[in-house]
């Protein structure tokens, strides 16, 4: 990283590697059955077909809606509660056990049960995304506040800071890098929650599209929404990195 590397070498290697993988894949798949084993060529033509018919967008938009609602709800609940838990230690102690328990639970396992209770609608999906997001945001926000430098708390005290000013000048800026890490982890989990929920709840969303084509053994078409999800995952992660650099120019990445 420290040496300036020739970009031609860098991109040559990367693209070369991708081409080799694609070529091997294409040759093997064509030998074994082009559609079933989803040769790259077959995926591209399926993608074109799905885009042309508008099917892809038709299924993609509801996923984005579910994601947005669940994610925003998760932030709206997770950040304030996490900050409060980080500030008041009794609250922290009381909630630490349950929160860790919920955080380490494979939440995907609960989805069929949530489905039975909340029904096969959008509510279920939003709730699932919310549940996937909220704990990582909450845990990281709390860690951020608890991680505040005690010397700075003393500084604030020596200048007679009020509690609101303490939050504004010290606690929130100090927690911000952690909150952003929580959000980044949360986005990843939100995507997982949305997809799994859509596997089972109702007939909309990219998750459903994947199941639909898989059940028809049309692997090439099933992989098209997967590609969308890869783009969404990579895009949102990159976007958050940007946001992080912009919002917390003083901090290198916080580690939790």
């Amino acid at each position, binding site marked *: 990283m420290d040496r300036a590397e020739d970009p031609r070498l860098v991109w040559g290697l990367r693209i070369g590697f*991708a081409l080799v993988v694609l070529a091997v894949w294409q040759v093997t798949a064509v030998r074994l059955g082009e559609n079933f084993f989803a040769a790259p060529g077959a995926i591209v033509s399926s993608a074109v077909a799905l885009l042309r018919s508008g099917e892809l967008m038709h299924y993609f938009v509801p996923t984005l809606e579910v994601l947005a609602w669940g994610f925003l709800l998760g932030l709206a609940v997770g950040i304030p509660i996490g900050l409060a838990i980080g500030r008041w230690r009794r609250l922290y102690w009381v909630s630490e*056990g349950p929160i860790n328990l919920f955080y380490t639970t*494979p939440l995907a*396992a609960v989805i069929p049960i949530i489905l039975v209770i909340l029904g096969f609608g959008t509510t279920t999906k939003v709730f699932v995304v919310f549940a996937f997001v909220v704990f990582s945001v909450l845990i990281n926000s709390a860690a951020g506040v608890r991680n505040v430098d005690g010397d700075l708390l003393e500084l604030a005290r020596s200048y007679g800071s009020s509690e609101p000013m303490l939050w504004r000048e010290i606690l929130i800026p100090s927690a911000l890098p952690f909150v952003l890490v929580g959000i980044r982890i949360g986005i990843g989990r939100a995507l*997982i929650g949305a997809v799994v929920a859509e*596997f089972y709840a109702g007939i909309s969303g990219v998750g459903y599209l994947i199941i639909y084509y898989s059940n028809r053994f049309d692997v090439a078409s*099933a992989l098209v929404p*997967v590609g969308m999800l*890869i783009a969404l995952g990579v895009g949102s992660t990159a976007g958050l990195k940007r946001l992080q650099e912009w919002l917390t120019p003083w901090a290198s990445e916080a580690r939790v």
Partner: protein
Amino acid sequence: MVGVATDERSATGGRRAVRLPSRVEERLWWASGLVLVVVVWQVYAMLSTSSLIVGPWEVVEATGDLIASGELWEYAQSSALSFAIGMLIGSVSGLVIGLLVGRFRLVEITLDPYISALYATPLVAIIPVLIVLLGFGPLSKIVIVSIFVFFPVAINTAAGVKEVPRDLLELADSFCSREMLTWRDVVVPSALPFIVTGLRLSVGRGLIGVVVAEFETAVTGLGYLILSKSRRFLMAESLVPVVVLMIAGFVLYSLLKRVEDGMLERRRGL
């Protein structure tokens, strides 16, 4: 002179000063938090008129039933086996690739963008596809778990290798250590805590992989147990495997966390 309200905590010289009584207090609060959750859940279930809302006591009873009938054991075994094999394959391959990426700049340049991209992807999306390709047997589950586990281990291992102190590598070079020996003596031991971090983070993902795969294959395993019971509205019984998974995840996570903390502590002691 204005008396400024002081924060009692720091006025007594920071948290350290009030250690002893507060540690007991901390334990009490901690325990009461867990008790509170169980009590609230039980009361809510008792007040609820819906038969779909079951309380902890019913789950305990259902656990007894499922153990007695041998169902729980049978399904848990199937999940555990796939999980363990998948974990093993995924972490070994993650380790190898991670070491290569961390140590050789050209490998890093080539693979890093792809590994990062797939790490950011919700890989659950490929589960239905993989099952179509690999069938409904344990092979699908094992492959899925391996893929899920591979990425956190590879990424953390690579990060660990890159953190190997430069002067230690120079030391090895100054003794004309051969590459393989340098790996054994310097690179791997120094990256070990990171590798354990990767393993810790992959436990949760691996469990998700197993469960969702079992939802899809619907033949056996704890995931299938959840699905089949909840479809017949046997809510208490469907929660039993959830609790088992919860405990498994929590225990494995805490165990690896402890190993990791121990390593870091010993390192700091040196």
